[in-house]
């Protein structure tokens, strides 16, 4: 494969890793975060410390990235998840920016000038394997009682509580899990770029991740996969229009969201079970319409 195209695929895979976690948080649990670039930063720096200063293998770096992101998320979740949705969202935004500012001023790790010389351990193969594991884990999670509890929180939080779901605990579970995905994505990014700098993890990165989740369709794993690939390639394809690249990117996203307001996949899944569900729903809708028509005509009949 072309070296350049291969690079974009790797970036798409790295984005996808972070997006999968955010998909769990936003798409399935209904919580918005604008600080996930912060968890990517934690993962990137933690893994770089592991592979350069501690001379550990890349796997250990990835593990350390996940664990450190999880720790931060757990603490922040404990403090902020009791807040109402909007406040939680603002708190995550503050966290993301705070992490960036701390790294900016942390000279031992290169400060704002960045940190060169991270080994190039990221490959097509190890990204592919990790993303595959990430997708499988997410799919198994959302099709279990734990995943259904998260979806219940998104749908109707009060009813979820009354149904015996420990809402605070499950929200934190979603938050920590999503942070692990972001941390691991950060580790791959660091070892792909071989150079990390705090400004790579600014608010715009967090926003981009959330846009991808919404673009792919909330509550759909295949939508997130599709969204991450399309929206990583799109800016590259738009290089032709140079200066207007970001404008064209924005316009393209807006156009697609207008034509498909619920995102590319609109909450549906591209899987045997998902397709079956779409078909069953169509059938049920037709049956219900028929039944309603029948009762309506019966009522008219009995009245006359």
């Amino acid at each position, binding site marked *: 494969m072309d070296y350049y195209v291969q690079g974009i695929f790797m970036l798409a895979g790295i984005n996808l890793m972070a997006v999968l976690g955010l998909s769990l948080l936003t798409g399935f649990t209904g919580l918005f975060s604008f600080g996930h670039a912060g968890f990517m930063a934690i993962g990137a720096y933690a893994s770089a410390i592991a592979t350069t200063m501690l001379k550990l293998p890349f796997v250990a770096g990835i593990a350390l990235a996940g664990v450190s992101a999880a720790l931060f998320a757990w603490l922040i979740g404990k403090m902020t998840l009791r807040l109402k949705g909007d406040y939680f969202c603002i708190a995550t935004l503050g966290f993301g920016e705070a992490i960036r500012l701390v790294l900016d001023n942390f000279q031992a790790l290169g400060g704002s000038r960045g940190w060169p010389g991270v080994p190039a351990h990221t490959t097509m193969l190890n990204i592919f394997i990790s993303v595959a594991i990430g997708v499988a884990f997410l799919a198994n999670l959302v099709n279990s009682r734990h995943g*259904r509890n998260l979806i219940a929180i998104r749908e109707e939080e009060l009813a979820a509580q009354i149904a015996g779901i420990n809402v605070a605990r499950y929200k934190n579970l979603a938050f920590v899990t999503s942070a692990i995905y972001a941390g691991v994505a950060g580790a791959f990014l660091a070892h792909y770029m071989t150079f990390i700098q705090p400004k790579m993890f600014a608010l715009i990165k967090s926003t981009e991740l959330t846009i991808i989740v919404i673009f792919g369709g909330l509550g759909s794993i295949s939508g997130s996969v599709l969204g991450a690939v399309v929206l990583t390639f799109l800016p590259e394809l738009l290089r032709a229009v140079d200066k207007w690249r970001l404008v064209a990117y924005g316009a393209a996203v807006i156009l697609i969201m207008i034509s498909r307001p619920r995102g590319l996949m609109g909450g549906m899944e591209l899987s045997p079970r998902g397709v079956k569900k779409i078909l069953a*729903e169509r059938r049920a809708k037709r049956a219900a319409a028929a039944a309603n028509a029948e009762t309506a005509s019966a009522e008219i009949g009995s009245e006359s």
Partner: protein
Amino acid sequence: MSERTTTLSPGSEILEVRGLTKRFGGLAAVSGVDFSVREGGIMGLIGPNGAGKTTIFNLITGVYKVSEGSVLFRGEPIQDREPYLIADMGVTRTFQNIRLFKNLTVFENVLTACHLSASYTLAEAALRLPRFRREERALRDKASELLKIVGLEDRAEVTASNLPYGLQRRLEIVRALALDPKLLLLDEPAAGMNPDETEQLMRLIGELRDRFKLSVLVIEHHMDLIMALCERIVVLNFGMKLAEGVPDEIRNDERVVEAYLGAPAGGK
């Protein structure tokens, strides 16, 4: 279906509310209310709009914090517990303004609420280990069976928000039953139903009570339903208990007629 072991003899009280008070700022929505529900009984809670009926449900289920007084479930105080723990103990409810998991199917609504009947961990789910598969199958069987009992099985794949109104209320009741409750609180289950549907619902509530050995506390404005269904009735007015007794006593109680029924005995 898993059976909770009953330690109390029939005839004892499953729920006892003592001096229950809730203030919102200066307004006492509920003040000093006492009553109790007998194990296996059906109790009615009636009163004019704004009397504090829903507030009492919110206090019992832990949605609101109690200002004063206590709520005892099987003799155990529960007024300081989190809602999910109270649900886990066997107290559950439906909502006056329906709160279904709207974008999920009928089946998924019930399946979600069955979660307490399974105990597999996150790791077991992620790796699809045998216990996950086994318990998941049991959950699905349980959800199907519940839908069959209330006659929603042919709507299993319909999205909840597309159900007709009466069936949405029915779905809320099954979702509550999925928790294997001991005490079921129904907040205006017949609201918006025609007389036919109301009649059916009444029969259903009675059947479910017998089948699942439930105790029921029901709020309603349909007096026919309340009078026919309930063994005892508590009447609330301005947050205070106005009267309590069997349907005949309530129907003929002058204060109740004046404050709420607003018509001679037997009327609506």
